[in-house]
């Protein structure tokens, strides 16, 4: 059956699907649930909230590329939401002190990257990043779980530090993942992130602005991830010292023992994922991954999509041989920029958390309100609660239930019952049981009948 859909309908479908995808993949403005979901067990976070389920929204957008490519407005919305999300989540990630929350906001930010890629119609880059992200983010979560397990359930990074010597396997695998997520070659994340940034810059749907935000975000990503590594694994252990003579073996998870490495059963997945975090990106070399996805991605040229929408052509799409040469050079320059940015983030984190560890708190103090704003996640939860949930509940309670339902509707019902009773009370007076009253009524009735007959007779 041929599908006939106007541009307006396609745009509406695209935007509605985007709303669903935003909820599932934790994008602005529907991302607030994901950091809270970190209350779940860490392996669940690794599987559901990092690698698989949350990426379903990205998957849906890419899977529905036939719709999105024909709905430029929806596509632009995808890009803008993805770009903003990746940027804002990264800023929050910088300030968080709970190891799992840093990773949660990092996930939101990386999902934003995937949206940005999908939004510039680079669907294969988006799926590519989805895959590599699954490797290193699952590794990071499982590593965080190993850390938390190793120090007796503590999640606050301010109470960690120096864990490298206690849990070397966890340290090295997490370092690999951090290198990968920061986009440092030749680790997996480098290939996919670089592809996204290039597409954001060069795609007919892209723009330098998107690329610019992407690069800034890459810098922040590298910074907060190495901040996590340095706070957790370097320096001195800041957690509770093992109690002398504490009973052994009874409460392994909650007791205050010296930090210890996790058993091999927990480390094996880390190692496996570590290998994948190194080599997982290599499948993208020479655009192999992109060609692998060719069959499922419809080629819709910009002219076609614009022609369908009856809008003016906004971008030149002529891509001659010379232009291709030129773009190859540009691609290499941009690649250099993103690698440089990744190392700068690493360097800054090292400077602030290893070299001059007293600085971060002074910076936080100096920036005052801004720091508090970011630390409290821009008060988005509170805003939603005050602007949406509170008024909705109040409206339902005071207006709908107590006024309309109880007073107006049910009031009318009960009032009509009362009215019926009152009318009956009046009529009941007839049934007084008094003979004189009945006699009076009979007389009055008889008089009325006689009067009527007389009147009829005289006509």
């Amino acid at each position: 059956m041929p599908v006939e859909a106007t541009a307006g309908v396609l745009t509406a479908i695209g935007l509605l699907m985007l709303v669903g995808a935003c909820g599932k993949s934790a994008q602005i403005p529907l991302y607030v649930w994901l950091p809270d979901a970190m209350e779940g067990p860490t392996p669940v976070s690794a599987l559901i909230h990092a690698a698989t389920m949350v990426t379903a929204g990205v998957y849906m957008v890419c899977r529905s590329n036939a719709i999105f490519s024909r709905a430029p407005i929806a596509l632009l919305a995808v890009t803008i939401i993805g770009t903003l999300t990746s940027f804002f989540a990264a800023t929050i990630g910088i300030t968080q002190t709970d190891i799992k929350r840093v990773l949660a906001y990092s996930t939101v930010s990386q999902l934003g990257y995937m949206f940005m890629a999908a939004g510039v119609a680079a669907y294969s880059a988006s799926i590519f990043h989805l895959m590599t992200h699954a490797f290193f983010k699952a590794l990071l979560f499982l590593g965080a779980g190993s850390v938390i397990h190793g120090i007796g359930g503590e999640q606050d990074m301010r109470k960690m530090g120096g864990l490298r010597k206690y849990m070397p396997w966890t340290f090295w695998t997490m370092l690999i993942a951090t290198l990968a997520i920061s986009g440092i070659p030749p680790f997996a994340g480098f290939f996919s992130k670089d592809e996204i940034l290039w597409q954001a810059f060069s795609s007919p749907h892209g723009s330098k602005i998107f690329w610019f935000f992407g690069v800034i975000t890459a810098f922040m990503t590298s910074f907060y991830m190495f901040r996590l590594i340095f706070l957790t694994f370097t320096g001195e252990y800041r957690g509770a010292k093992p109690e002398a003579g504490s009973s052994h073996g009874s409460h392994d998870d909650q007791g205050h023992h010296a930090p210890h490495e996790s058993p091999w059963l927990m480390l094996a997945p880390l190692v496996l994922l570590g290998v994948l975090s190194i080599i997982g990106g290599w499948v993208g070399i020479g655009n192999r991954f992109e060609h692998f996805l060719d069959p499922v991605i419809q080629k819709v040229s910009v002219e076609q999509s614009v022609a369908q929408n009856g809008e003016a052509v906004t971008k030149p799409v002529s891509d001659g041989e010379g232009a291709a040469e030129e773009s190859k050079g540009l691609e290499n320059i941009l690649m250099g920029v993103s690698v440089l940015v990744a190392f700068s983030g690493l360097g800054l984190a090292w400077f602030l958390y290893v070299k001059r560890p007293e600085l971060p708190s002074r910076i936080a103090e100096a920036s005052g309100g801004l720091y508090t704003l970011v630390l409290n996640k821009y008060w988005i939860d509170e805003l939603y609660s005050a602007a949406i949930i509170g008024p909705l509940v109040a409206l339902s309670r005071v207006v709908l239930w107590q006024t309309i339902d109880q007073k107006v509707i049910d009031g009318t019902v009960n009032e009509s019952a009362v009215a019926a009773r009152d009318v009956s009370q009046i009529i009941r007076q007839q049934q007084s049981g008094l003979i004189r009253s009945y006699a009076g009524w009979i007389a009055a009735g008889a008089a009325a009948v006689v009067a009527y007959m007389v009147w009829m007779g005289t006509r």
Partner: protein
Amino acid sequence: MNISTLNPWILTLTTFLPALGALLIAFLPRRDRDIRWFALAISVITLLVSLHLPAHYRDVAATNSGSFAYEQNLHWITSPNIHYHIGIDGISLWLVVLTTFLVPFCVLASWKSIHDRVKEFFILLLILETAMIGVFIALDLFLFYFFWEATLIPMALIIGIFGHQRRVYAAVKFFLYTMIASVFMLAAIIWLYAQSGTFDFTELQHLLASGAIAVPGHTALWLFLGFFVAFAVKVPLFPLHTWLPDAHVEAPTAGSVLLAGVLLKMGTYGLLRFNIGLFPAEAHKNAPWIMTLAIIGIVYGALVALVQPNMKKLVAYSSVSHLGFVVLGLYSFTRAGMDGAVYQMLNHGISTGALFLLLGMLYDRRHTYEIKEYGGLATPMPIYATLFLLITLSSIALPLMNGFVGEFLILSGAFQAKAIYGIVAATGVIWSAFYMLWLYQRTFYGAITAPVNATLPDADVRERSILWPLAVLALVMGVFPTLWMNSIDASVAGILKDTQNAMSSASTLQVKVNTVLK
């Protein structure tokens, strides 16, 4: 003996077995334990007998020329011309089975909570069962009205005698409200009889469709409204719903279960069978405002449910919302919407019936329905909490559960009828998750606030044997809807075809229905 020789009598048997049981209980000595077991036996036997209906429905329907199976048409009263005419189609089939299925659970739920006047209670319960089944099988309007009003008496007595504090107020309100509305239906039935000399549904349908009964001017609308008011109160459709929360809160558990599970379905069943069946043109003409009321009910019922401090009232208002979905689907006049509506009637019977059973178990323990009295119950009552969650998921129509099938079909039907209906109604999906999950969170999660809750016993064997079948059925209905949907769909298609024919004789709206039917 060939089982098919039973077919003409099987409906009568199903209907009157409970009444016969009630009669026998009346002669039993007042030994509560014996009476409970006897009532349970009767209700289970009735269930087993009624299962003959779906088991052989396909064969019986295939050999039947009309749209009804298991038909039986006997003279009852010669003047006026009243027949004992009964029969079921693919829609009433499942409503009968829903009724016989729920009653044994109601008996079990009343096992301990009813300890005074046990004999009277079970007599009323079984009489109520007969009356409810009768409503769904009657094909003679007089017989229908008889059963329809017959449900009122036992239900009002169950609320008024065995209910909670404000039981008499609730019982009187329930009785008067629904009976006053039914009078309008009676007037319409009498008008039809005066014009045609018959109460027979199929005959009347034929006479009205062929134009053999002269229905002047606005009379058709008044007849339609006469039936409509009676059914809309029962459903209940916004704004005629305020008897429901009172009746539910005051009723004992079994009363609430049958009220929500079956009595409300009598309203939606009537809207389908009689309003659409007898007056298809009027029904179609009036669909826009009916659907609008249904959608208001969906959103309004859900939002009011959200802020209820009393959990039984919360579930009662959720019924207003759920039944709004059913009416919306019916009056979308699309195959998907009507299929979904009928399926949702069954789903609501299962899920809301189960919710009332669950709340009753909590009430047996703590004697309160106030949400703030609970909290953290998942710790002392893990099995109960699990079953509550399963039923909650069914109620909020999560995929894999029965509610999803119904709601999805209804929404797609409503969308086909008019996009805006589907769009607004779809928000109901969010609201229902909001109020049910919030209820669940406040009741089962967090720390135990009242110390008495810490030692509450978990669901016992009797309670688990009530809840597991319902939970499993909710899942099966969500995964294999075709088991039910095949017969429902065939009957819905028949009704839609009749509607279409009526339209083509009215001609102007024909094009519209054709597009809707596609």
